[in-house]
C-alpha cells in the first residue's frame, strides 16, 4: 500500500490555566504507519491524542486533512470522521459486548448487514464466546479487545491509543499487539502513547518524545535513556527471547 499523508497537524498549542501543555506541536500521520508517542506523566500525551481525535479543542493550530491547510473549526467534522481515540481504560457502555461493538456501526445500516458485520468483528477479536456477556464485567484484556473490535468495525483512518496495554498480563498484551498489527496492515495510521518505549518497538515505525510541550524524534541515545528509565517487563523478555 502506498503511504499517503492522511492528516497534518501544525502549531498545536494548549494551555490549562497558566500551564503550557503543548507548545506548537507539528505532527503528520501517514497510512499504515505506527507512531509511538513517549513522555513522562503529565507531559501532555493524552491531551495531544484527544486534540488529534477532535475531542479537545486546541488554543491554536491548523489542520490539513487533505483539502489544504485549514483552521481548526472548519475541519473539525472531517477530523472526527477520520480519527478515533481509545482511552487508557476503554469505556464500556452498560450493555452486552455485542451491543458495545454494534455502537461503532452507522445507525442506518440494515439488520442483516448489521448482524453480519458484528459477527465479523466478534470473530476478528476472538470475542464470540463473550458476545452476550455484559461488557461492564470484562477483564482488562477483554475490554481492550472489545475496544479494538469497535475500532476495526469503525475503521478510522487514524487510531489513537492511550497506554493500550496498561495493567495487562503477557498473553493479553500479545493479543493486543497482534490486533494492532492487523489494523496497521489494513492501512490505519496508528499513534500509541506509552511510557514504555520497548514494548511497542516492533510495531512502531517511528518514535516521538513529548517533553516540555515540544515534540521531537527519538534518536538512539535518547531511546537508550528511556529504556533505562523503565524496568524490562515480561513482554520485553519474550521479545528478546
Amino acid at each position: 500500500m502506498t503511504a499517503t499523508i492522511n492528516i497534518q497537524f501544525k502549531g498545536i498549542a494548549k494551555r490549562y490555566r497558566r500551564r503550557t501543555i503543548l507548545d506548537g506541536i507539528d505532527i503528520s500521520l501517514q497510512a499504515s504507519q505506527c507512531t509511538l508517542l513517549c513522555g513522562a506523566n503529565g507531559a501532555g500525551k493524552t491531551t495531544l491524542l484527544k486534540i488529534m481525535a477532535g475531542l479537545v479543542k486546541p488554543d491554536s493550530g491548523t489542520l490539513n486533512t487533505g483539502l489544504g491547510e485549514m483552521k481548526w473549526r472548519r475541519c473539525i467534522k472531517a477530523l472526527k470522521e477520520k480519527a478515533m481515540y481509545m482511552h487508557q481504560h476503554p469505556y464500556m457502555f452498560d450493555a452486552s459486548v455485542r451491543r458495545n461493538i454494534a455502537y461503532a456501526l452507522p445507525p442506518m445500516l440494515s439488520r442483516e448487514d448489521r448482524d453480519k458485520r458484528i459477527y465479523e468483528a466478534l470473530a476478528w477479536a476472538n470475542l464470540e464466546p463473550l458476545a452476550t456477556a455484559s461488557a461492564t464485567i470484562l477483564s482488562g484484556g477483554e475490554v481492550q479487545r472489545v475496544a479494538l473490535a469497535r475500532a476495526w468495525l469503525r475503521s478510522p483512518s487514524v487510531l489513537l491509543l492511550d497506554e493500550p496495554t496498561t495493567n495487562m498480563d503477557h498473553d493479553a498484551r500479545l493479543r493486543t499487539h497482534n490486533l494492532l498489527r492487523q489494523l496497521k496492515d489494513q492501512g490505519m495510521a496508528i499513534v500509541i502513547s506509552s511510557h514504555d518505549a520497548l514494548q511497542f518497538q516492533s510495531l512502531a515505525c517511528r518514535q516521538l518524545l513529548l517533553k516540555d510541550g515540544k515534540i521531537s524524534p527519538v534518536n538512539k541515545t535518547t531511546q537508550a535513556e528511556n529504556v533505562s528509565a523503565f524496568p524490562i517487563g515480561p513482554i520485553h523478555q519474550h521479545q528478546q527471547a
Partner: protein
Amino acid sequence: MDSLNNATFEALQLLASGDSGLWNIIGISFKVSTTAILIATPPSLLLAFLLAYGDFPGRRLLISVFSTLLSIPAVVVGLTLYLMLSRQGPLGDLKLLFTQSAMVIGQIVLCVPILVAMCHSALQAADRRAWETARTLGAGPVRAVLTVMHEVRFGLFAALLAAYGRIIAEVGASMMLGGNILNATRNIPTAIALETSKGEFSQGIALGIVLLILAFILNGLLHYFQGKGRFAT
C-alpha cells in the same frame, strides 16, 4: 379513636364502591400532574445536560439558582403565578386562572428545579469517557447525548419519580391557581384540605390513602431504580 376507625372504614368503602366524585378528583390529579411532568421533562433534561457538560458563562450561577429553587414553597409559586394570570396581571388576557392549564403551569414551575437539579447531579456523576467514547465512535451530538442519558438512566428515573411525587401531593399552587372547583380543578390535595375543613374526614382519608399508596409505589420504584443503578456500575 372510634371516629378515626369509623372514618377509615367509610373511606375504604368509598374507594371500593367506585364513588364517581372521588374517582373524578383522583383522575384530575393524575391528569394534571402527568401533563405537567411530560411537558417539563424534555427541556429539563436538556438543560441539565447543558449544565453538566456545557461550558458557557453563567453556568455555575444557573446551577446555584436551580439548587435554590428546589426549596421554593408551593404557595410562593402559586401566589406569583396567580398575580401573573389574574385579570390585572401580564398574562390575564389568556384567561387561564382557575383552570387545569393554570394548575399544570404551576406544577411545571414546581417540578422543573427538581428535575434539573437531580438530573444534573446524575449526569455530572456520569463517566466522562461515555461522552468521548460515543463521539469518537462516530455518534452525532444527539445520539451521544441519548447514550450518556441511557448510561445514567436510573438516576434520571429517580429524578422523574421524585418530581412527580412532589407535584401530585402539593396543595398551595393547585389551590391558588385552580381554585378547587368541583369536577374541574379539584385534585387530591385540595380536596383533602376542603373535606377536612368541613369535618368530612372519610373522603379526606380515602384520598389520603390513594396518595399514600402512590407515595409507596413511587418510593418502591425509586429504590428499585437506585438499586439497579448501583449494581449496574
